[in-house]
């Protein structure tokens, strides 16, 4: 997707007579790419949703319903129309921001997403912060001590994070830190006692509680999110630290590092400022991608921690053939990927003076 926007943005225009100004070209290219990407996304999800061997009417009315109730629901869902017509109706509605209603929740899909996405956003952001704050220094240390015990330690720690199933890690984490040690609160986003104290503004409890000035609620929400965020973050930590290490190794063998050492700069300054400074550019893409992965919603983590996020929402909807909800959720995930790619592009330009 990013590459597409790049090409469109920087593609040569041969005509000398009508040269569009650069920013307009960038925006135009962007809009085209976004439009095509979304359309592709809609087409693929829509038709996959229609070929799965599940009868969506049956999923809506249930097994015991009478023939007349079944027919009525079929018409209400618009499923009596030919497939191409259903698709046109859907695209037309989406174009004006109407994703339809979810069969499962009785709500407009857009309202559901407004409710579940902030929960995922909050969790994914905390997880990514955890992964970045620990992952980058670990990667740097591993690179600097290449082949010695700190490197091995980071490698083993990272491999564990990458290979142990999240589901198991989550349950063991709960058993240890919640059930036995009482260090963190249990599954869910808040204790019952704190429910309803804060009005939803952003839907992210950590933010909303601060806005409302409810410090107790903030700490309770924090104690609920800590464990799932760490477990999610562990996965990105593993990835980020491995990538940081390999980027750093590449930089540390460059000539400018030798020059810096010859000039007598302190080792700390060489590693943390010069080498890491250059590593930040490709690292931004790595972080953005792993953030985007977490934002899809991690179904298993969400189930273990009873976290009402996007992952559970989409999975549930898919299993129940609630196609409006699946399509809506997919468009959100797609948008997240596209905008994070865009963001990393912009950051890339800011961090690297050569990328103009």
């Amino acid at each position, binding site marked *: 997707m990013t590459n597409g926007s790049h090409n469109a943005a920087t593609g040569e225009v041969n005509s000398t007579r009508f040269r569009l100004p650069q920013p307009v070209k960038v925006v135009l290219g962007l809009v085209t790419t976004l439009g095509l990407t979304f359309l592709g996304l809609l087409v693929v999800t829509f038709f996959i949703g229609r070929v*799965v*061997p*599940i*009868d969506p009417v*049956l*999923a*809506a*009315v*249930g097994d*015991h*319903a*009478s*023939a*007349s*109730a079944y027919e*009525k*629901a079929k018409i209400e869902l618009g499923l009596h129309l030919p497939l191409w017509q259903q698709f046109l109706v859907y695209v037309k509605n989406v174009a004006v921001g109407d994703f339809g209603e979810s*069969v*499962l*929740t*009785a*709500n407009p899909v857009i309202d559901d997403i407004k*409710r579940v996405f902030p929960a995922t956003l909050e969790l994914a952001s905390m997880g990514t912060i955890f992964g970045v*704050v*620990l992952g980058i*220094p670990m990667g740097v240390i591993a690179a600097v001590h290449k082949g010695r015990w700190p490197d091995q330690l980071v490698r083993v720690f990272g491999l564990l994070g990458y290979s142990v199933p999240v589901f198991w890690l989550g*349950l063991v984490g*709960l*058993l240890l*830190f*919640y*059930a036995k040690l*009482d*260090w*963190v*609160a*249990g*599954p*869910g986003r808040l*204790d*019952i*006692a704190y*429910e309803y104290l804060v009005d939803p503004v952003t839907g992210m409890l950590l933010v909303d509680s601060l806005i409302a000035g409810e410090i*107790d609620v903030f*700490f309770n929400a*924090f*104690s609920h999110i*800590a464990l799932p965020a760490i477990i999610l973050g562990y996965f990105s930590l593993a990835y980020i630290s491995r990538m940081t290490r390999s980027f750093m190794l590449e930089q540390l063998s460059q000539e400018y590092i030798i020059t810096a050492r010859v000039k007598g700069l302190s080792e*700390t300054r060489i590693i943390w400022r010069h080498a890491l400074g250059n590593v930040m550019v490709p690292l931004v893409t790595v972080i953005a991608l792993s953030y985007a992965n977490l934002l899809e919603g991690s179904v298993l983590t969400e*189930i*273990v*921690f*009873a976290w*009402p996020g996007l992952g*559970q*929402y989409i999975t*549930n909807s898919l*299993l*129940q*053939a609630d196609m409006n909800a699946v399509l809506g959720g997919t468009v959100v995930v797609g948008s997240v990927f596209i905008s994070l790619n865009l963001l990393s592009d912009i950051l890339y330009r800011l961090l690297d003076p050569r990328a103009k």
Partner: protein
Amino acid sequence: MRRLLGAVAIAAMAWTTPAAFAETPKDTLVMANAIDDIITLDPAEIFEFSGAEYAGNTYDRLIGYEIEDVSKIYGVAAESWSISDDGKTYTFKMRPGIKFISGNPLTAEDAAFSLQRAIILDKSPAFILTQFGFTPENVKDKIRATDDSTLVIETDQAYAPTFLLYCLTATISSVVDKKEVMAHEQDGDLGHKWLRTNFAGSSTFKLRQWKANEVLVLDRNDDYWGELPAMKRVVIRHIAEPATQRLLLEKGDIDIARKLGADQLAGLEGNADIRARQGEKGAVYYLGLSQKNEFLSKPQVRQALKYLVDYKGIEQTIMKGKATVHQAFLPKGFLGALTETPFSLDVEKAKALLAEAGLADGFSLTMDTRNTAEITEMAQSIQSTFAQAGIKLEIIPGDGKQTLTKYRARNHDIYIGRWGPDYQDPHTNADTFARNPDNSDDAKSKPLAWRNSWDIPAMTKQADAAVLERDAAKRAEMYLALQREHQQVSPFVVMLQDIEVIAERANTKGFIIGPAFDDNRYHKVTKD
């Protein structure tokens, strides 16, 4: 470097804010359940386990039955009733003094409106009422309030009185607040869109909040006309993972765990703070044998398969207290339920029957199997016992909706299923297991007998006669006879009856586990 590590260590310690409350508030019942099946809060549409439980605690119906003995029917919103001599007209006298949470009084008009509305909306459970001859066109004449305290219902035939009465105890017969609902009507939808996520009832609890797949919160209805519940609030959290439910329960963050697996329940044994309780539910587990299959259509093969299921083994090892052996289509607790269990695992007998059918060398079959843990394990047990008699069974796993779609299209050999009754009258299961009025491929209704292509004109007539028998004792006899025949000849291997098990903290008492899902009640719950 050192400073950085220090900062990381401090940040790590900051995560470990201790949990503030380990106990739930004294006046609040907190439960963990899987409530992702709730798709609506409108009683005219509710047809899911958790939804029915919600309606059972929030809406009053005209009549109810005693949980311990369902044959004892009593008035709720109706104080008394009488039946005309021809058996077609029912007259209900309404109980005075009941108010909806809006403050409106509950009258016969509300009761008539609620039933009419359910029939006009024609949602999934509507057949429970339309089977008495009501249609959207005639219902306003057939069900009517003659004054504020009198409701008249006219059925098309003289049915067994309990048939109608039990149907009036079902969720779909909940009385909704006509004024309130109609105030929210959009495009002639009788307030359906609004009521899907809102509340207009009069019973012990009222809706505070429903967040799909997250939480359902009920508050006590302080204006309830009967005895007030002790709990001010009931919070039902959606916790999909049973292991998580167990942790929350042990920790005291919830009072009752509703969806524990056999493993979790076994793990909790010996914990003095936690008590497990159970109640028999109406759902039965069964195998459906398609009569389109050349082997399964032979009577000896059907009979043989009934001797090739390890009923006891499944009950004791796979279901461990969550189901009990049962072999007739009417579950225990229903009028006329047959409790005889003539079948047990008997490979020799089965082999003899197969030889009689000319199939001594065995044959192959497939079984569509929902990919949940319990159903899959049952299927594997059946696969191994079938193999002992030379039948090669291939298990085709699939998501529940997927296997069901295939079953309803009659594309299976064997389907392993679970069927829950829709109301408390025996006709509910007779209607689907023992009636098949039209066996053609494009039949309008798809009862279980139809799905297995079992053409039974004579048995259909028998079932129809039973529903018209007005003498309860005679009617029970008719169902017993019907089940005895069905048990032997039908393409259904009924195996087990469901048991619902809850685990509660020792200080929590009074949660009622009723025979139907809308009989699970919270109003007697107390906490020490």
